[in-house]
């Protein structure tokens, strides 16, 4: 009787250890990464943009959104707070500064912080919805996003 009880106890301990190790492995698999979002307006000054960002692969959740590198878009863009803890978001911002204070070419307009879980490599997709020049006219832009390499 006591021998059976010993085996049962040992088995339970082994199972608990295995579960604990699995949880630890899973915690190691979860990581946070910044994803930079760029807008390229060519030679035209960029005064406003709106884009749709989405994670198309992997277990990805948006956990934070911050502004870009250029002073005109340094503040966080407009977004739906419901996008937090989800895999997609619409970002938009504008600035009515004079033309010479607006960015041209490729500029980082926002950075998204995402939580990635699991081993599936995440994939991101960003699509431009609209953009405007300083006079409010529609502007053709290209958009891109890139997971920032961290040490």
């Amino acid at each position, binding site marked *: 009787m006591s021998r059976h009880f010993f085996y049962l106890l040992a088995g339970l301990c082994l199972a608990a250890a295995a579960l604990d190790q699995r949880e630890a492995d899973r915690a190691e698999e979860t990581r*946070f990464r910044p994803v930079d979002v760029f807008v390229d307006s060519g030679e035209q000054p960029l005064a406003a943009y709106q884009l749709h960002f989405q994670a198309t692969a992997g277990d990805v959740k948006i956990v934070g959104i*911050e502004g870009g590198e250029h002073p005109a878009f340094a*503040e966080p863009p*407009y977004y739906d707070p419901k996008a937090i803890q989800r895999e997609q978001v619409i970002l*938009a911002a*504008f600035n009515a500064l004079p033309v010479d204070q607006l960015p041209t070419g490729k500029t980082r307009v926002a950075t998204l912080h995402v939580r990635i879980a699991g081993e599936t490599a995440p994939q991101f997709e960003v699509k431009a919805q609209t953009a405007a020049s300083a006079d409010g006219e*529609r502007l053709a832009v290209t958009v891109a996003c890139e997971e920032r390499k961290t040490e």
Partner: protein
Amino acid sequence: MNRPNQPEPQAPARLIEDLRALDRRALFVPPAVDERLLAEARRHLAEGRSAAPPWRVLQPKLALAACLAALGLLAALFVARSPQFAREDLNRDGTVDIRDAFALARILETGAGHDRAWDFNGDGVMDRGDVDTLAAQAVRLPNGKPAKVKEAAGEPKHRNAGLAKDRTPTPEDAS
């Protein structure tokens, strides 16, 4: 049976003479009779005019009503065919996006004009808060509700005032 060989019958000479005398007599008609006859004739003609059938009396009104109805129908068709824009679609491009918020911001900055219809947050004032409300609608996710725009009292108005100004969660928060 005709009897052509018999002579025509002749009227008596006295009768012929009396009839000729009758033609030569002047017939006197009193003026009162003339006036009465004239009045009777006028009354009869007036009765004839007013006794026209009702549909003839209503005919011009019916025609006018038909014209108005036709005009109304044409106007309804015109309105139905003309594109309907949302109130928030300031630039009338069929989409509510950040360009509409940008347009409103430029209007407010330049003071180009105010329209009560642009009071999107319903606070009775057209200011940066309406721009933020419009932008919040532009970035709303398909199954999401419009983001609430917070406005702190005494806080200076920033370019991205409102929801985007709010502190966003960080990885530390999530962990």
